[in-house]
């Protein structure tokens, strides 16, 4: 590509100063510079696209394609062994009268609300405590401590927690017994199983919201807080009137991401309760898994996934619409 430039230099006009390469006329030089810049820009753009492409391929292969596939699969009856059979919207028709789907959506929504509310409230509370009272070292220690469970897999944690909360030989009931307190049916009663799953999920995910709020509180404008202090605002008033409105975008982000995550809750109920007792912790993704991989109804499972996707979309849209009233971006 650089060859034509060299050719032009070789045919420089006579009378050019010796010792210096011959110069093209000014307008031609500008055009050459522009062309070179454009070539460089094109090369940079190509390089950028090449870099993005690798990530894009991963997203397309592992996210976009499966999403499209599940939309298509929802229109088929398929057991993964025989050929798929097109059934149109039959799967969705069945789904409407399937109490298991409705129940799982209710269970999941209930769990999601409890988990997200606790995660946001506790994450914010802890962040406020740490930001206000602790030294930098203690802050970092807390950050690491709260974030650590997030680094472990939910499945591994659930296996450990299933033992910790075991009714018969769990650590918690062991200590309750030592203290002559009544033992709790953590995993074998409806309320106990729900509470345990919420506790474990909140404990594991708390680090995420905690870090978000610590960062949000650290970036609050100092002059505003100082002005409020000078005006004699109490701590509570400062929190409700100044800090909370200023970090409301973080609250929105944490609750939206939290809700999307918890609506897809699987590991904890699968490992700890198998959806029980009865179907009290039977989440929608657990239903999808069992329908697809155990009952071999891949089409129907895809239809349930599509419905869950739609539900999530609607909830997120509602959250964003409602946020216009309580989130302040400036």
């Amino acid at each position, binding site marked *: 590509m650089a060859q034509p430039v060299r050719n032009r230099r070789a045919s420089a006009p006579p009378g050019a100063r010796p010792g210096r390469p011959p110069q093209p006329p000014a307008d031609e030089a500008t055009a050459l510079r522009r062309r070179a810049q454009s070539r460089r820009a094109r090369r940079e753009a190509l*390089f950028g696209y*090449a870099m993005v492409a690798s990530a894009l391929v991963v997203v397309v292969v592992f996210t976009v394609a499966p999403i499209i596939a599940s939309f298509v699969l929802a229109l088929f009856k398929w*057991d*993964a*062994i*025989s050929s798929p059979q097109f059934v149109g919207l039959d799967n969705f028709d069945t789904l409407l009268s399937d109490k298991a789907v409705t129940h799982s959506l209710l269970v999941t929504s209930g769990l999601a609300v409890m988990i997200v509310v606790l995660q946001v409230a506790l994450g914010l509370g802890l962040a406020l405590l740490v930001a206000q009272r602790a030294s930098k070292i203690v802050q970092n220690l807390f950050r690491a401590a709260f974030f650590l469970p997030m680094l472990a897999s939910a499945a591994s944690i659930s296996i450990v927690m299933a033992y910790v909360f*075991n*009714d*018969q*030989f769990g650590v918690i009931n062991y200590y309750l*017994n030592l203290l002559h307190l009544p033992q709790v*049916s953590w995993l*074998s*009663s*409806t309320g106990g199983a729900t509470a345990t799953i919420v506790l474990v999920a909140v404990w594991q995910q708390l680090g995420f919201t905690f870090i978000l709020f610590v960062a949000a509180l650290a970036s609050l404008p100092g002059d505003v807080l100082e002005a409020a202090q000078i005006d004699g605002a109490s701590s509570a008033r400062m929190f409700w009137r100044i800090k909370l409105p200023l970090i409301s975008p973080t609250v929105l982000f944490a609750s939206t991401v939290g809700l999307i995550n918890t609506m897809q809750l699987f590991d904890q109920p699968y490992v700890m*309760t*198998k*959806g*029980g*007792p*009865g*179907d*009290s912790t*039977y989440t929608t993704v657990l239903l999808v898994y*069992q329908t697809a*991989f*155990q*009952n*071999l*109804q891949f089409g129907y499972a895809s239809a349930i996934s599509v419905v869950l996707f739609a539900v999530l979309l609607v909830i997120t849209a509602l959250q964003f619409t409602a946020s216009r009233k309580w989130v302040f971006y400036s």
Partner: protein
Amino acid sequence: MSSGLFKAPMSRRGLLRAGAASAAVAGVGGLASACSSDSGSSSGSKVLNVAVFADQATANKLNKAAATFEAAHPGVKVKFNGTTGTDWNDFFSKLLTQIAGGNAPDITSVATEGLQLFAAKGLAQPLDDYVKRDAAELKSYFADVHPALVEAMMYQGHLYELPTDFNAGNMFYSTSLLEDVGVGRPADDWTRDDFYDIAKKVSAKGGNTVGYDWVVRLWGSWTSWMYANGGNLLTEGKWDGGDWLWNTFYPNDPAAAGRKGGWRWGDPTANSAPVVESLDYMIQLQKEGVAPKPDVGGGTTLQGLFAGNKIGMSIGGGFWAGGLHNAGMADGSFDVQYFPKWRSQRHLFGSGGFGILKKSPNKDLAWEFLKTLLSAKNLSLLAPGNVTTPARKSMMTAEKYATTGPKHWQVFYDTLTKFPETAPIPAPPYYQAMAIALNKRTTEAMSNGKAKAALDGLQSDLETAAKTG
């Protein structure tokens, strides 16, 4: 970041070169692994892939059982591939996904739980023609195996597996806990009331000790009580056919009388009176503190608790002998008795074996391998340390149980002969949906104490599952 590697910024060309080199390495690596893949028959050698329900370390140990076969078939390698899971349902899910992904093994271990599932889906190869062809060679094997185990491996008149092992739901008990409360070994014909008295006495010891414990699953759960009470989750029937087998191998065996072409599981009867009564009994035991609320799963935890002398009695099969021994229980600290009598002393059992996948390109070779597995030596290698009950009765010897116990090891096999009405667990082609529903409804009943309502739900679940297949 002080490393020299990161000191100088990398040029784009350098980055691209590095990327290309990495891709090339990855490609070569992939190619290399593809070349070394053992799924095909490259360079004149063949690999028989055998899927087993075990971790890979255990699966690797099974290679010993293939030694005689590999020696007799130069160029053929048998590879045992382990797949783990919490229960058979979990194993089947993974195996079916593997098959759906075009990675079907040649042979797979399938217990009673999945036999009809694999047969009905057209995944398993009927063995009728092979067995008929090699009948003379197989006579000694069949003469050594109880016909009930063979019938459990049939579906719609065809034989799909040759049983290698089985486990009947007997009652294990802690000898020391029973001695502590002044109770000796229960009689062979002990009843539910006898069981209750013992369980009550052991529970009275207090602490964390319970008289009885169990787990939620299809085999050896409250379903054992259901069988003893004359109930079942599904209507019992038999498929026509199979006469060729019974006439060839069991012509004068009274234990083969009435055997047909496999168990035909009909309409659900999950909310029938004997079934409700059985689950109600479990609720009653739990309310009285004789038994705790049960866990869901394979029973490993239960064995651990039993080995820790926290449980007076629990349902177990031959596999418990090895399990308790491995958990540290000394021979003599536990023993086994038949399941107690309720309306009858009917037991349930599950059998294990290996089936050939219809899609296997090496079916003839797979059959030759399966035959070699039936020798007593290879069956011992397949299940070392009494982790199951061998299907061949001649393998049940005092020597076999000398190190592990239990003292009354004869109970395991004699269950089949002493109680001829003993039957396999009800595992229809929709076993997976049934297992999920059973777990769900059992935990529901144990949680809210309402057996009838839960079993009405189970009945409805099973009716739906039977329709949708």
